[in-house]
């Protein structure tokens, strides 16, 4: 009798403990355009990092330029809150020799500003491949960084033949350039937010750091004579081996909440019908609605970062697959992914798309219907499904998009 009681007790204890132990139900990632931390850092630290992200850099003491695109991160990542999007575009250019894309002298990025008129960059003749690139959202990027590379591979493997996204591995600068699945930038050219921050600090603001110690050129010509601040301009410190600003930018992005839905619009019958049509038509094959981040404690970025509880095991709704596709809009530029990516672009994550007036990678499309119709190539079948919808259904689908 006693044995039976003890056994029952044991079973009861196990019944209580085991679900807790095995309960891995992921939680929803926090969302909001509210300038509040997602919990990765304390609010005071988040505010301090946000201020750094908004800081307007000058030639001295920070080392702005000599060639650059903007004076602060927030110039391009601000709408409706710091870290989000803007209408600002940048220019990339180069030459296609019939087989390969060749970078413009000095690199494919053509800086729009310079601290001296004599070193202003411009697109040189013979560089017929040109494109604009719109500024991307960085809100929620901490969750994106925390997605396991194998999750992205699994998404690709689950896509139908002919629509399978290309997964590329790119250097993680802070891990000695070991590679990881790319997920940031229009060409998936970065896998870590520290690498992305160092790249943007150099290429958008002209400020060097330990991970990007060499100044840019002006169309390939040295502009060292115009640079009054010794490199690296954002130096390593005991607390920040990759530079205080670079690490502060990355910490800010890691602590941002994901873009929220317009919940009132999302609750309308039209938006709900549109959501179903979005899936029915096949948009969700690439604009993936649900992705779960890696569990807390997972070591990512080739050992350079460990997923914390605030970012781990969270469901995000990016409406993107963070893979490269050729949907007929390719800009002809090659960055980190090799020549096979020349006409491919990362699926645009649609979270927060309601804040955008200029659409697609180049911002050249001004309304939702035209943006949809601009898709071709791998998306041809899906877009033909869209073409077969009635006007009412198209409006519902667009209402859904406007709720994102």
């Amino acid at each position, binding site marked *: 009798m*006693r*044995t039976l009681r*003890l*056994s029952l007790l*044991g079973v009861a*204890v*196990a019944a209580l403990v*085991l679900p807790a*132990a*095995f309960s*891995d139900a992921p939680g929803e990632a926090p969302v909001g355009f509210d300038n509040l931390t997602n919990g990765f850092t304390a609010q005071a630290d988040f505010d301090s990092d946000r201020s750094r992200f908004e800081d307007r850099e000058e030639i001295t003491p920070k080392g702005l330029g000599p060639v650059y695109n903007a004076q602060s991160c927030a110039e391009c990542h601000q709408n409706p809150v710091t870290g989000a999007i803007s209408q600002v575009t940048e220019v990339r250019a180069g030459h296609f020799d019939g087989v390969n894309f060749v970078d413009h002298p000095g690199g494919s990025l053509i800086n729009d500003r310079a601290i001296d008129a004599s070193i202003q960059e411009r697109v040189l*003749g*013979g560089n*017929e*491949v040109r*494109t604009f690139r719109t500024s991307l959202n960085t809100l929620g990027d901490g969750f994106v960084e925390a997605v*396991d*590379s*194998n999750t*992205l*591979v699994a998404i*690709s*493997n689950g896509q139908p*033949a*002919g*629509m*399978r*996204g290309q997964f590329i591995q790119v250097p993680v600068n802070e891990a000695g350039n070991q590679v*990881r699945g790319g997920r940031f930038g229009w060409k998936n050219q970065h896998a870590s937010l520290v690498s992305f921050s160092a790249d943007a600090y150099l290429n958008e603001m002209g400020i060097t750091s330990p991970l990007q110690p060499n100044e840019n050129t002006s169309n390939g010509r040295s502009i060292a004579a115009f640079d009054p601040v010794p490199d690296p301009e954002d130096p390593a410190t005991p607390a920040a081996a990759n530079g205080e600003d670079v690490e502060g930018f990355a910490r800010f992005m890691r602590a941002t909440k994901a873009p929220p839905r317009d919940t009132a619009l999302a609750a309308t019958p039209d938006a709900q019908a549109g959501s179903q049509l979005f899936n029915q038509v096949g948009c969700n094959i690439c604009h993936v609605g649900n992705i779960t981040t890696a*569990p*807390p*404690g*997972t*070591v*990512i970025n080739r050992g350079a970062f460990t997923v914390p509880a605030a970012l*781990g095991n969270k469901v995000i709704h990016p409406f993107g697959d963070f893979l490269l*596709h*050729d949907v*007929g*809009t390719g*800009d002809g530029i090659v960055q980190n992914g090799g020549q*096979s990516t020349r*006409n491919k672009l990362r699926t645009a994550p649609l979270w927060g798309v309601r804040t955008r007036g200029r659409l697609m990678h*180049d911002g*050249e*499309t*001004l*309304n939702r*219907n035209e943006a949809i119709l*601009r898709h*071709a*190539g*791998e998306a*041809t*079948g899906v*877009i*033909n499904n869209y*073409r077969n919808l009635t*006007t009412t259904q*198209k409006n519902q689908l667009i209402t859904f998009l406007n709720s994102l």
Partner: protein
Amino acid sequence: MRTARAAGVLLTLAVIALAFAARRGREGGAELEPHPPRPDTPSPPPFAVKLPPPTPVEVEEGLRRAFGDAVHPAAGSPRSLVGDFNGDGAEDVAVPVSPATGRLEELNDGLANWRVQDAREDAAAERGPPPKGERSAVTVQPEDVLLAVVHGYGVRGWRDERARQCYLVRHATGAPFEARPRTQLLRYVRRVPGEPRLTGDVILVSVGGKPGFVYWTGARYSWHPLPSRAHPCPSTSP
């Protein structure tokens, strides 16, 4: 009895320990080297297969697939042209068309399956000061002769049943209305001020008495002028 009790307790403890060990394992691992993904999507087939010239019946079928009955080939206008106008490797077709009677509302519907563009609008905007206010939507007028372009898909190009991406372009149908390969124009446009970005083959078209060419910018069809005394290329098909 005692042994059984102890075994029960030990068993329970073991199960709990295993459960937590499993959980810890999932929490503390390193991101694994990704398994090799399946082969990437192959690029669209190159435009290597020489397709037969289009017949009027094929052109009308292609137009109907893209535009329904909203347009028809323009009377007295030049024949259709084929080429890889958007540079994706598949053959496209371009045809001067007129709006069908009573179909203007459908043609100008903001949710139509085609996009209406003006080949001169953006070229003018690029050369002059930026337009004030928002860009107005381009609308089809009853008397318009428009350039209808149907982009191709795969090796069959514009004849493929899936080829439905299409455009109606105003100010893009004047003489000589000849197609030219991108490579021919590329050599020439490097000497042209404001060198346009050529992604595909072009169509030589005079607009308002000025010679020029219609080309795909990557987002729209646009017209670019040529100096009147120069004719860049001999008359050959692309």
